[in-house]
């Protein structure tokens, strides 16, 4: 492990609403497994983005989080952010070019069309083992009122797809997932993200 990279290893978790503490814990664990010393910190205002190599947009309510991103002035700052973005569930809706709902103002950083709550209400939320490109055995994924992507632009790499639609993509430094890797107790996807943005 090259410890000279540890300065660049700071990761922010967008801390406006949702399961922020779960994301912090998961990134702390993934960082330890990779031998990184970087800081994992909550992001509440544009200044908090300084010095970050990556930003996670957590699960939560996409309508609420998207309103707060605008209100806090984070919208423009995140659009200009040079690091990688790790967007899960609500985050996947918010990062898309087409969030599938006119009530949501999305960041438009990954070219895809989203269908929100694609599986139905909470009683249709599920756990399942899915195949993810780049992982050597299936990933146990937690889908909670999850969205799917129904179309992706060229240049967006689909890394997991199930019957209902696309549930994981990569686009440059960014990743978007319809499920909740922060709840899975399996950091393999976090590590793919970190290895990519930190060039490990």
């Amino acid at each position: 492990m090259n410890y000279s990279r540890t300065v660049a290893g700071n990761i922010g978790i967008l801390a406006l609403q949702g399961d922020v503490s779960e994301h912090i814990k998961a990134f702390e664990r993934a960082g330890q497994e990779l031998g990184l010393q970087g800081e994992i910190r909550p992001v509440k205002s544009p200044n908090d983005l300084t010095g970050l190599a990556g930003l996670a947009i957590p699960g939560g309510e996409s309508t609420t989080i998207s309103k707060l991103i605008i209100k806090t002035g984070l919208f423009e700052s995140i659009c200009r952010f040079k690091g990688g973005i790790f967007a899960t569930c609500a985050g996947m809706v918010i990062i898309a070019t087409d969030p599938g709902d006119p009530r949501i103002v999305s960041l438009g950083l990954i070219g895809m069309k989203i269908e929100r709550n694609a599986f139905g209400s909470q009683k249709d939320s599920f756990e399942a083992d899915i195949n993810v490109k780049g992982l050597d055995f299936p990933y146990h994924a937690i889908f909670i009122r999850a969205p799917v992507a129904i179309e992706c632009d060229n240049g967006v790499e689909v890394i997991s797809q199930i019957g209902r639609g696309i549930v994981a993509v990569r686009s440059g430094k960014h990743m978007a997932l319809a499920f909740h890797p922060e709840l899975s107790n399996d950091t393999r996807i976090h590590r793919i993200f970190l290895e990519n943005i930190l060039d490990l």
Partner: protein
Amino acid sequence: MKLEELRYGTELLKRGFASMQKGGVIMDVVNAEQALIAEEAGAVAVMALERVPADIRKAGGVARMADPERVLSIIDAVSIPVMAKVRIGHFVEAQVLQEIGVDMIDESEVLTPADEEYHIVKKEFTVPFVCGARDLGEAMRRINEGAAMIRTKGEAGTGNVVEAVRHMHAIMGGIRALSGLSEQELVSFAREIEAPAEVLVETVRLGRLPVVNFSAGGIATPCDAALMMQMGADGVFVGSGIFHSSMPQKMAKAIVDAVHNFNDPAVIMEVSKGIGDPMRGIDVHTLKEDELLQNRGW
């Protein structure tokens, strides 16, 4: 992926759903119009009701689950999760709400209890439950029955935050007071507060409830909401406080802003300006023992 390998209604999915609500405001609504106001204000979910608690107090009689048509009209109106209440112990009302497709069921003391001996066995349901609690023992019993979220009861429909504060002290202070005890001592203490020992030991080890803990019952202003957040709530339920205020749209937005900036007095000051009159409220000390909703459930 084979369909038979999908798992629904697990503990992880229920608690996970509750976690997604953290840092949010859940608002009581009685129709689609109010639900849209709540969503527009930034609520993370709405609670669909026949009447808000302050009106349940006024109306008297038996308060029951809302009409399924009313709940469905609210589900159709908004994209955020919709919750609804059932009477304590009324597992058939819960079956019906699960059938409707609500995202979470509140087994609530605000409605007239249907069973004075048992609460619903919530583990048997696919849909997650939230339950009220006044103290640590009550919270532990509800979690043991399968509640995926706890809300401190407060005193619903009063617009008076004092009971919400009392219950949050009881739970947060209760956990802090136990932090030095050995497992053996905790098991013994669990018997005293009629709590399942396993859940109590886990709670003390974590230093917090093992499920999300919201505050409810009497929150009527942005300051009230921020107070509960600073005391350690993961989020708040606002019942009568929004639609019994003089300017519901402004009050709803202000409470959402206060929750997101609960540690920033400057923001709370700003959002508290010009939002009309909060609900009038009731001094809880003028309520008779049998008028207190919090004493329902055990």
